[in-house]
């Protein structure tokens, strides 16, 4: 809005013209004249965030990504992505005089000779593990509460893309130090590339710039790890949050909460204070882990040399499900007509994760199709009220966990002093049985919980008192507000949806239980 009144003559007059909010008003005016921020800005400051502990899981992911960026920038200043062979003469004496790649030497040097270098490296590694872990738990929350339903299917898909990119970038990142374990990981990744029918050998040769390991792979992993994938991930996080603001949060049913409103605390100052505090706490905890919980001690593994390997080789936890799948797969290589398809690699390392991610990505569409529920949903489900979905999610998680556990067959066999063969067959059977049993049990528990008396009520305290005769009596304490949440009762899945014409956007007085969607 252009200011058209006459120019003020004195300073005091100018101040008076600014109104009661002084310089802040002036800043707002100047900005608003140019970019028009006042109306949208006010709405943004008033944006309502519903409160629930499980809504913080995504924040953990976001803030560990912030930690990753900050510590990662520090690491790039010292890490050298080079396969050139050098001889180490540094402060870490056990490696003195050993031949190693410049990448490994620079990783050792930044761990031992750069101030706070080890802290930053270990914080970076911890933050990566926390990042992916919190994404998984966040997605489980989204799944089990049905937050992925229309209109949020796209954001669910973006989340799946983010998870897969985070796993990929985690792998690239822990490959960079060129220690004995990470080098073995790169070798396995190369062999998986080779296994792809028709084009495998070409992909391998192109990515590695010739035969394995060549001299360029670390440089290529480096630029992908520090530039390309972080940019893509940042872009997707931007889209993820942008959609979240546009579509607004989901919320659990409860007093005054309807499909047409959001109930909670405002962006400024409440949510901003709480979430900034949470960022600081996540960073602080990552710092504590980075200094007190050793992770990836590359100096103990030694430099990578292709003929060398150590015992109990395991990847970081988020790659464990692939490693476990590779371990329990029978050797089913096909050779015919002068060609080979190594199914024992293709199936567990490519087809299996492909199916898992595709199924997760397709779930909102599948659920829409099978339940014929095409309505917009802003209120969350309780997992027990959707037994089939909850059972499917539990089955998938248990499948992934079983395959993950199978990545430690050798350690389990050694720890429990049983034969490796028994452990292997245990997992081959468990990987089929565990998801089925878990799914059925979960489904049954959901049904039972639905029929539990008082299931949607908060537990009331019992007051135990002693009478004059010495008799003890337990009496229920007086009810507190919110003890009975009638709105928590599940909503039936609609049969037919008619979208009524939407009225003009105004602030609507909340009417509990009324939904704009009729059926």
């Amino acid at each position, binding site marked *: 809005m252009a200011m058209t009144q006459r120019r003020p003559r004195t300073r005091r007059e100018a101040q008076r013209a600014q109104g009661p909010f002084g310089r802040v008003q002036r800043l707002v005016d100047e900005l608003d004249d140019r970019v028009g921020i006042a109306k949208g800005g006010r*709405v943004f400051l008033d944006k309502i965030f519903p409160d629930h502990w499980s809504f913080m899981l995504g924040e953990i992911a976001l803030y560990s990504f912030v930690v990753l960026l900050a510590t990662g920038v520090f690491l790039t200043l010292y890490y050298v992505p080079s396969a050139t062979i050098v001889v180490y003469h540094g402060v870490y004496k056990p490696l003195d005089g050993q031949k190693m790649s410049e990448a490994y030497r620079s990783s050792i040097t930044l761990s031992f000779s750069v101030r706070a270098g*080890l802290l930053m490296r270990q914080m970076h590694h911890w933050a990566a593990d926390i990042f992916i872990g919190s994404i998984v738990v966040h997605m489980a929350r989204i799944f089990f509460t049905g937050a992925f339903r229309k209109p949020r299917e796209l954001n669910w898909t973006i989340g799946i893309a983010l998870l897969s990119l985070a796993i990929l970038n985690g792998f690239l990142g822990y490959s960079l130090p060129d220690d004995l374990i990470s080098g073995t990981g790169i070798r396995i990744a190369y062999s998986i590339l080779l296994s792809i029918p028709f084009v495998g050998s070409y992909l391998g040769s192109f990515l590695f710039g010739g*035969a*394995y390991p060549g001299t360029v792979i670390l440089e290529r992993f480096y630029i992908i790890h520090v530039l390309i994938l972080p940019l893509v991930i940042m872009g997707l996080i931007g889209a993820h949050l942008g959609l979240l603001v546009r579509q607004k949060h989901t919320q659990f049913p409860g007093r005054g909460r309807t499909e047409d409103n959001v*109930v909670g605390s405002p962006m400024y100052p409440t949510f901003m204070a709480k979430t900034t505090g949470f960022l600081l706490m996540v960073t602080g905890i990552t710092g504590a882990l980075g*200094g007190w919980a050793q992770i990836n001690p590359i100096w103990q593994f030694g430099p990578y040399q292709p003929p060398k390997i150590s*015992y109990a080789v395991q990847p970081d936890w988020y790659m464990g499900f692939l490693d476990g799948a590779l371990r329990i797969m029978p050797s089913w290589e096909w050779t015919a007509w002068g060609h080979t398809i190594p199914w024992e690699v293709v199936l567990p390392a490519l087809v299996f994760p492909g199916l898992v991610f595709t199924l997760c990505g397709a779930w909102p569409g599948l659920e829409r199709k099978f339940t014929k529920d095409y309505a917009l949903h802003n209120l969350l489900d309780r997992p027990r009220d959707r037994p089939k979905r909850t059972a499917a999610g539990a089955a998938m998680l248990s499948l992934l966990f079983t395959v993950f556990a199978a990545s430690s067959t050798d350690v389990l066999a050694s720890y429990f002093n049983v034969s*490796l*063969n028994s452990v292997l067959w245990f997992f081959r059977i468990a990987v089929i049985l565990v998801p089925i049993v878990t799914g059925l049990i979960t489904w049954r528990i959901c049904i039972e919980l639905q029929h539990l008396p008082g299931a949607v009520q908060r537990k009331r305290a019992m007051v135990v008192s002693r009478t004059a005769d010495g008799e003890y009596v337990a009496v229920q304490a007086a009810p507190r507000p919110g003890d009975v949440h009638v709105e928590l009762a599940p909503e039936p899945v609609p049969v037919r949806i008619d979208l009524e014409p*939407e009225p003009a956007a105004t602030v609507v007085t909340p009417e509990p239980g009324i939904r704009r969607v009729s059926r």
Partner: protein
Amino acid sequence: MTPEDSLGAGDPGALATDGHAAGDGERPTGVLPVASMDDPHLQDAARYPRRVEGIVALFFVLGILGVCAFGAAYVENADTQVLAASLAVGLFCLGFGLTAWGKYLMPQGPFVEARHPLASSKRDREAMAAALVERTGVVVKRRKMLGGLLATGMGIFGIVAVFPLLRSLGPKPGSSLFRTNWKKGSLLVDATGKPVHRTDMQVGGLLTVFPKGTETTATKEAVDQTVLVRVQSTPLVTMKGRTDWAPDGYVAYSKVCTHLGCPVGLYEQELELLVCPCHQSMFNVRDGAFPQFGPAPRPLPQLPIYFDGTGYLRARAGYDQPVGPGFWERTTQGNGKASAT
């Protein structure tokens, strides 16, 4: 809306997001009611805000001390643990204080915000679809030739652009996956370049060997690595057709696992099994390294070796098949099964 509206009241108050709720004549206000007596978790804080203020202040002071200690620890080049502890205490306490401030001393509501429907009117939707369809019609239907030419040009560019992007990355695989640097007469040397004499190893001993004369680069070591095991003291025939391949019980196999290419670096002496630590494939050294267990699909290729005139081990020939994991162009199952019968 006044603070009393939400204090103890059952219904959440509506938040004035624009001029409508505040009324046109009034001055806009941004003040929000602070505490809610409604939530049992917040009742204490609402009644005694000074207490909460004290706790928040305490955490802020601890946080200030922590970040100061972090700075001091950095200047003093203290241990990683000291750096981490001071950083963690500093940031966690500042964060905890700020979160508590936000949770107990800032406007908590519950406030209500209406969801403005995302969907546009039916008319708007139709207008957009119409614009897309009708304007595309101008391009596609009326100027078919122009559209076709442009699409052809862009399509060709899309395809040819892929070639330099991919093709410049590295050479074609060619025969690189089929070859190692072992050839007839190659002298077996260990990692330090020392040749292996027939008296060098005891029964049960194990050594990783390479062909002499090739410079040692990681890329060559990766394919040439061969594991030499002395299984017994008399000549060993691992299978039919390999009569002179293992003199004095010295037997040599490719060290590259046929599953995923890890070095088969463990040797279980009692059972005479080579074990891959990655996915636990096990290969029996006596029977041509057939996989006894695990996901490996093929035996490890065997290198035929002999003693030269001075008693040093040499290769009789190179490997008779590609070493390592399977790939599309690999032609046969390997010599193992074919010559075993």
